[in-house]
């Protein structure tokens, strides 16, 4: 059987759902947007306009779930990379909103740039399991900081042929984003709606608040039926209650409020049930991504999302380490297993350390490797007639070996064994003679080769020129 890791029983899932409904009905959620409040009121919510608080009912949540599609496309510039949700096998994403980079050449930490985002796109395209690219750092070298979001999105779209996810931080960014998407597709607004090559993350602000600018920007985006990732981030013990259970209930309540707002704004908006919960360092209050409790909560959120029948995405493969090394490796394994073992659709977080604030291109490669090991573990032990090799045992009998059995040679080419490319398994002397290289060295070599090669699926020059003109206009006008 497969190796699964549920953390909530069916009864516990229902209990958390009820808790979340109670939070929405009795405590309410702050929505600092007249537009959203009036939509909520028309949809049946009790609204306190002075406090900007809406009290959302269970019936509203039920209606929103009926309106939300359960299956949809995350399209890609290269159709070969189109991703249908829910997936049949977990895939990978970066996280967003970091600011630093471990420089690939010097190893020094510095602020991230547009060139780094371009390099990320290239490395991302070379990782088969990587399917959704959230622009992972805020480039510090955009000519106008108010256009940085648009520039980051555009840079990702130019440099990856896979699906791009980002954020609509303000409504005034949206016309430029739509123009860029039209340029990439060489099409119209209808093509943007149909192909869905762009989706947006929407973060609530814990506890129980929405952010006006991002909310109104994302509400405007729903007109184009772009998928929206619901992304609550309460930190257990500071911006969330200090039990994993209640922190999940709070996060779920925030997501249900987002679900209701978007389905009321544009019924049928595709939504991904996401999660980026955390706990804090007991002493400093720092948000801990790499902690075990963090990922237990994420596993619970994945179960909640599946209970609701929505595609799921969760922050995982995370680390609070300040460097690519032992701590990062340990935390990333511990924060990947609970997701692979709950069949999340998309894991969000490869390539980043320091609480997803810092990018390492080598870490992208290492994380894809960690992911594959976790996936193999999740696959478990397949006890079936096809893999019943009694005849081999009988043939070899006592002593001897199985190396020459046909089934052995076949199995070595199957998914029975994961053949690691980053762990060569040399003996000590061979390893030392080859320069005592570790995983990071092999990852570095791999990245160097990817960056030196031509792009796998480059955007044509005319389209890129058109996008750069839109970027320039955004920089001039935003």
């Amino acid at each position, binding site marked *: 059987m497969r190796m699964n890791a549920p953390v909530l029983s069916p009864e516990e899932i229902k209990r958390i759902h009820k808790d979340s409904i109670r939070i929405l009905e009795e405590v309410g959620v702050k929505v600092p947007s007249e537009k959203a409040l009036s939509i909520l009121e028309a949809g049946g919510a009790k609204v306190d306009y002075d406090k900007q608080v809406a009290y959302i009912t269970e019936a509203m949540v039920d209606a929103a779930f009926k309106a939300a599609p359960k299956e949809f496309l995350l399209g890609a510039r290269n159709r070969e990379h189109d991703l249908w949700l829910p997936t049949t096998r977990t895939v990978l994403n970066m996280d967003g909103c970091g600011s630093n980079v471990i420089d690939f050449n010097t190893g020094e930490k510095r602020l991230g740039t547009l060139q780094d985002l371009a390099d990320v796109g290239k490395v991302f395209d070379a990782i088969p399991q990587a399917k959704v690219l959230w622009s992972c750092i*805020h480039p510090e070298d955009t000519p106008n900081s108010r256009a940085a979001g648009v520039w980051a999105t555009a840079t990702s779209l130019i440099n990856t042929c896979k699906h791009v996810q980002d954020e609509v931080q303000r409504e005034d960014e949206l016309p430029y984003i739509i123009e860029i998407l039209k340029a990439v597709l060489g099409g119209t607004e209808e093509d943007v709606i149909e192909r869905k090559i762009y989706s947006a993350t929407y973060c609530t602000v814990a506890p129980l608040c929405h952010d006006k600018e991002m909310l109104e920007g994302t509400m405007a985006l729903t007109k184009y039926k772009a998928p929206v990732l619901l992304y609550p981030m309460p930190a257990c013990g500071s911006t969330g209650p200090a039990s994993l259970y209640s922190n999940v209930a709070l996060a779920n309540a925030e997501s249900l409020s987002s679900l209701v707002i978007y389905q009321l704004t544009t019924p049928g908006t595709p939504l991904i049930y996401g999660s980026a919960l955390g706990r804090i360092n007991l002493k400093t209050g720092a948000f801990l991504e790499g902690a075990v409790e963090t990922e237990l909560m994420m596993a619970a959120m994945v179960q909640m999302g599946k209970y609701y029948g929505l595609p799921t995405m969760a922050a995982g493969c995370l680390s609070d380490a300040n460097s690519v090394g032992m701590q990062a490796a340990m935390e990333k394994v511990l924060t990947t297993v609970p997701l692979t073992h709950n069949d999340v659709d998309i894991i969000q977080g490869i390539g980043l350390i320091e609480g997803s604030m810092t990018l390492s291109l080598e870490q992208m490669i290492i994380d894809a490797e960690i992911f594959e090991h976790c996936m193999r573990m999740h696959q478990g032990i397949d006890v079936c007639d096809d893999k019943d090799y009694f005849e081999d045992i009988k043939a070899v009998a006592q002593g001897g070996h199985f190396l020459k059995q046909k089934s052995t040679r076949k199995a070595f080419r199957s998914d029975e064994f994961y053949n690691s490319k980053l762990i060569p398994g040399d003996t000590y002397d061979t390893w030392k003679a080859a320069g005592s290289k570790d995983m990071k060295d092999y990852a570095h070599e791999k990245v160097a080769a990817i960056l030196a090669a031509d792009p796998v699926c480059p955007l044509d020059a005319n389209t890129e020129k058109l996008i750069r003109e839109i970027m320039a206009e955004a920089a001039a006008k935003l």
Partner: protein
Amino acid sequence: MDIYELMKEAVLDGDEEEAVRLAEQALEEGLELQKVMDEGFLAGIQEAGQLYEDEEYFLPDLVCSADAMKCALEVLDEAMKNDPNAQKGAAAKVALVTVQGDVHDIGKTIVGAMMTASGFEVYDLGTDVLNEDVIAKVKEIDPDVLGLSALLTTTMEEQGNIIEMLKAEGLRDDVKVIIGGAPVNQAWADKITADGYSDNAIAAVKLAQEVLK
């Protein structure tokens, strides 16, 4: 337990109501304010700080102690101003704010608690505060240190904008500006000519002490 001991305990327990009650009692009984501070409330916050250093107190304990201390100080504030013998340890003033467009409160709150626990007089200006309102508050409060928090890559720009506005108003030399928040770092602090940056609340206290030397 004498009243000074009770004051210390109230702060250590993070008991705001008790701290207020004892501060009011001190005023009613005309107790010597310097002693009320040194042997009562300040002694409490100092011990809380020590317990935190010793890892017996965690962050929530310290936040509660700091808030109890602040509640007592608010009661005593008027009387202290009018008492030439009483000083609040001649505390340096720190104004903390989360910049405009950013509603994230927690980092600033933690820094405020740590600063209070370390003897600073802390003014919390709130979150998502317009840059011009920050400038107005700097004029009004005249802080020694201005701490600017930003949790978003999209709002960290405001830290630089506020520094530029301080320069334009001729206020830049009167206040040390320190910055914090997940996306910022020393390179960013250098770029926007802040006086310092720290990546956690304990370091922020040390930084504030450092820039005031």
